[in-house]
């Protein structure tokens, strides 16, 4: 009780209250605009929060993170376009409900499910905090190294079908982090004798380039779409009654959200996928899923909103961000010299609980705002894409330039913006670069510290938590290899079953035609014709 009171004391300030309001309302609005999303907003606002108190800055960013998914469900349901990437699953059942004239029901169900997921996860984590406080000190250098390694492996393996390029991009992030002066021996690494590279590549410059500027370029090159909105009339409270009829789906989905949120590198998509699959399998009407099922909507929205609070666990307890947004927040901690990790749980538990209570209040504020202002809010989806791109470009300048007033940083950010644009065009993952940068730095420091006390390789994993983490890494890698092997076998089987003589014959004809048409083919024929007998026909 004393802990909660002292946490409330931290929050009882006008600037924290203002941050809660700005974060919650701002997050919902940003989430409701397709094409912006919390990553862009957090990247832009990050340098502005450096001048604030840690609790104020983090409340704003947490507000945007936690409330954007509420807003993201609005365009997902009304116009079949997810406001944020994690609302993609909401379109499956939300939009069909809109097409059959149940838009208000779908939106109210999305709000109530999101609210339940958010509140459930925060309460779970407040109750779980004392246990974490006991476990966190057991994490020494080698455990944190292994946890970071596990995080990076999970991030890579989570990108199914793109694992190799995700691994290459994570290594690119690790390499980017090493550029500049090495902090122990003070030797230069990949500076190419350029003074501006000696201080390294700033994480925020990379984040702003890859997330904000690239999104601006995407929007600036896109076409404006005409949006037709459905008018919403009546109250949004009916969703709570409907949610109460599906306590099992809501409870299990929220639990998936909490558990998956705590595992670094897993996050919303896996939580949603598992919740949705569970809801479909356990439903009496599984055929309705994807055609406007209320259970599907509950599963998707509850799971994604339970993640933000849980995602703060590895960040606060171990200093390991599990995804891009928490990686950005880590820099706010470092700027204020608040080092997240076991020490934070031991010495500043009230700060941790204050953050969770802020999230709790935030969910209530968002719900109240949405219940009152949805009809006005839905108009933001009408903002033209290219105009939005211009707005992001102007705002990105504030983010990059206010860091160090450096034109070089801006040029670097523009370069990363073009890289991010290319990656987004190709649907290649950006998150592994950011996590490679952050986790690479953590792994370098922790491995160096850990190896100083290690005599034999077994010493590295002789402690219980280190052993558990090592076994988890081994298990994840083994399961991944098995999956790759199975996919390979299935692909080969499919190839054999579909390839038949006619296909091969067509390929032969194709190659033959190419050979006849190319210059080399002509040369070869000309050469061969010298050895063949001249025709004696007299035509």
């Amino acid at each position, binding site marked *: 009780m004393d802990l909660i009171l002292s946490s409330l004391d931290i929050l009882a300030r006008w600037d924290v209250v203002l941050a809660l309001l700005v974060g919650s309302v701002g997050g919902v609005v940003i989430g409701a605009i397709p094409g912006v999303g919390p990553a862009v907003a957090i990247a832009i606002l990050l340098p502005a929060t450096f001048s604030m108190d840690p609790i104020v800055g983090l409340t704003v960013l947490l507000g945007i993170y936690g409330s954007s998914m509420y807003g993201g469900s609005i365009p997902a349901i009304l116009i079949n376009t997810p406001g944020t990437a994690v609302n993609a699953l909401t379109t499956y059942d939300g939009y069909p409900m809109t097409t059959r004239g149940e838009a208000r029901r779908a939106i109210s169900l999305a709000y109530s499910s999101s609210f339940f997921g958010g509140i459930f996860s925060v309460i779970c984590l407040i109750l779980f905090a004392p246990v974490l406080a006991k476990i966190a000190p057991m994490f020494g250098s080698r455990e944190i190294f292994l946890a970071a390694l596990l995080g990076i492996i999970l991030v890579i393996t989570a990108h199914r079908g793109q694992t190799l390029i995700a691994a*290459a991009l994570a290594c690119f992030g690790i*390499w980017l982090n090493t550029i500049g002066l090495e902090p122990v021996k003070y030797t230069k690494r990949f500076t190419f004798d350029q003074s501006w590279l000696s201080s390294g590549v700033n994480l925020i410059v990379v984040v702003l380039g890859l997330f904000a500027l690239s999104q601006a370029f995407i929007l600036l090159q896109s076409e404006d779409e005409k949006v037709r909105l459905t008018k919403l009339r009546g109250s949004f409270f009916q969703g709570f009654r409907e949610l109460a009829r599906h306590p099992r789906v809501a409870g299990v989905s929220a639990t998936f959200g909490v558990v998956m949120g705590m595992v670094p590198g897993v996050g919303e998509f896996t939580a949603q996928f598992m919740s949705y699959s569970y809801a479909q399998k356990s439903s009496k009407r599984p055929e309705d899923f994807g055609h406007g099922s209320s259970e599907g909507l509950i599963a998707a929205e509850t799971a994604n909103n339970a993640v933000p609070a849980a995602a703060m666990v590895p960040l606060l307890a171990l200093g390991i961000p599990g995804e891009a947004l928490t990686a950005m927040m880590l820099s706010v901690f470092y700027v204020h010299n608040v080092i997240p990790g076991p020490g934070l749980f031991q010495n500043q538990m009230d700060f941790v609980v204050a953050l969770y209570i802020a999230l709790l209040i935030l969910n209530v504020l968002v719900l109240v705002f949405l219940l009152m202002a949805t009809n006005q809010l839905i108009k933001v989806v009408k903002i033209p894409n290219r105009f939005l791109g211009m707005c992001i470009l102007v705002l990105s300048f504030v983010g990059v330039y206010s860091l160090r007033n450096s034109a070089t940083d*801006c*040029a670097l950010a523009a370069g990363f913006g*073009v890289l991010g644009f290319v990656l987004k065009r190709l*649907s290649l993952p950006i998150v592994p670069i950011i996590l490679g940068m952050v986790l690479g730095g953590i792994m370098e420091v922790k491995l160096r510290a850990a*190896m100083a006390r290690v005599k034999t390789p077994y010493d590295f994993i002789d402690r219980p938590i280190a052993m558990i983490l090592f076994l988890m890494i081994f298990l994840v890698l083994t399961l991944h290899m098995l999956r790759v092997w199975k996919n390979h076998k299935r692909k080969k089987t499919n190839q054999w079953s579909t390839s038949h003589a006619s296909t091969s014959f067509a390929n032969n004809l194709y190659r033959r035609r190419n050979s006849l048409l190319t210059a080399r083919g002509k040369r070869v024929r000309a050469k061969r014709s010298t050895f063949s007998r001249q025709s004696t026909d007299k035509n």
Partner: protein
Amino acid sequence: MSDDPQESNGHRRAGQFLFAVGFTAIAILLVALLGDQTVWKAKVKFFAQPRFWPAVGVIGMAVFGALHLKTLHRNRISRYDLREARIWFESVEYALWFLVYVWVVPIVGYLPTTLIFAPLLTWRLGYRSRKMLWISVVFSLFVVVLFKSMLQVKIPGGLIYEYLPAGLRSLFILNF
């Protein structure tokens, strides 16, 4: 294998080969530069070597990049790849707009530059209506007031502010 730019799972195929080739080539170049750009210290443990983590990064980039390239099952650049590359190159125009904005702000000042930049870019994007141009002006004013005047983010005053009268000069340097 056809050259269709869209794969069945919705991922764009055009440009994948070009990107993978470029990425792997750069990674191999970085591996070649590893000895030149990093140092190997005597009497320092292997894992504490300044070269260790850059090596993990660049060798990982090269190995995984090459494996990714192999999985694409392509050996030539198609016309769809080149068309995609042209779209990548077109984004450079907006990067240049951004850099010009960055270059002009310390000279002309944050408020005047933003008030010119936003409507100009809006015009370039094809919006000709007065409504959109006025919205862009109001938006730029809002951004400057919010970030520079209220949140006091560190953006220096413009050089031309020096020519303003004394009272107005400090006001502009601090707030706009």
